[in-house]
């Protein structure tokens, strides 16, 4: 079998459709790092960052909602904005 002749389809990458999820995951990692390097007495910092991240993710979800023009898919149909 000639592996060099294999043709792989170009993935349908559209990160905008998973923008809220990406923001949530990034903020989750950020909160973990802040907790690892921050002082134990500053418990309010991680909570504040989490709430801010949730607000930004909610805003991005609202933006996706307002800019919706019919069902769109990404990653070859694995993600659907319906």
């Amino acid at each position, binding site marked *: 079998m000639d592996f060099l002749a294999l043709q792989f389809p170009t993935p349908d990458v559209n990160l905008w459709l998973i923008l809220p999820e990406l923001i949530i995951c990034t903020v*989750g990692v950020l909160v*973990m790092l802040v907790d690892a390097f921050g002082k134990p007495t500053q418990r309010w910092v991680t909570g504040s960052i989490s709430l801010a991240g949730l607000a930004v993710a909610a805003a991005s979800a609202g933006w996706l909602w307002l800019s919706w023009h019919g069902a769109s898919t990404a990653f070859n149909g*694995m993600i659907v904005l319906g």
Partner: protein
Amino acid sequence: MNGLPAGEFHSLLMFATAGMMFMASAGDLVIVFLGLEILSIATYVMCGFRRTDVRSNESSMKYFILGSFSSAFLLYGIALTYGATAHDDRTARHDKHRRDQPGDLLTSQYPLLLFAGAAMMLVGFGFKIATAPFHVWTPDVYEGAPTPGHRVHGRRAKSGGLCFVHARVLLFAFPFVVSNADRRLPERIHAAWLGALVWSSQFSP
């Protein structure tokens, strides 16, 4: 939550939320499974967050075993569904009008295989949303988990799983059971009579 690392809990909460969001935006059963696992693994840790408390450890261990068991059922159901329809996405349901791409239980070329797959997916999600009769260890998980973890597990995770079961599994696999008139009626009847049946036999020692 006094004395416990708040940052880790917030981080786990964010990952659980991301898993739920992935489940909600999934167009493919593989993404549903990935989202469910992201949600579940974060919830296992949250249930056992009080590491020095034996009941919290018991809660986490029981939920982990229960979750692993249900994930295996769910994955096997997804595999059977794929075998019956050659799809693992929404087209498995939407292609029912095409004769060469049978979509649901009424039009499938392999109805038994699809029925088995859908039934196993229902069992898997039944464990996840703790519906009767798959609810046996769930009270122990509720009892031992810290209150915030218990709320995430009890409200948000169950809501996400229930919405998915309702929107995808039931409508996809059992269209004759779930009619357009009242799509929640079978679930209500099931929850009511079976819940009432087993309620009297459950107690906490």
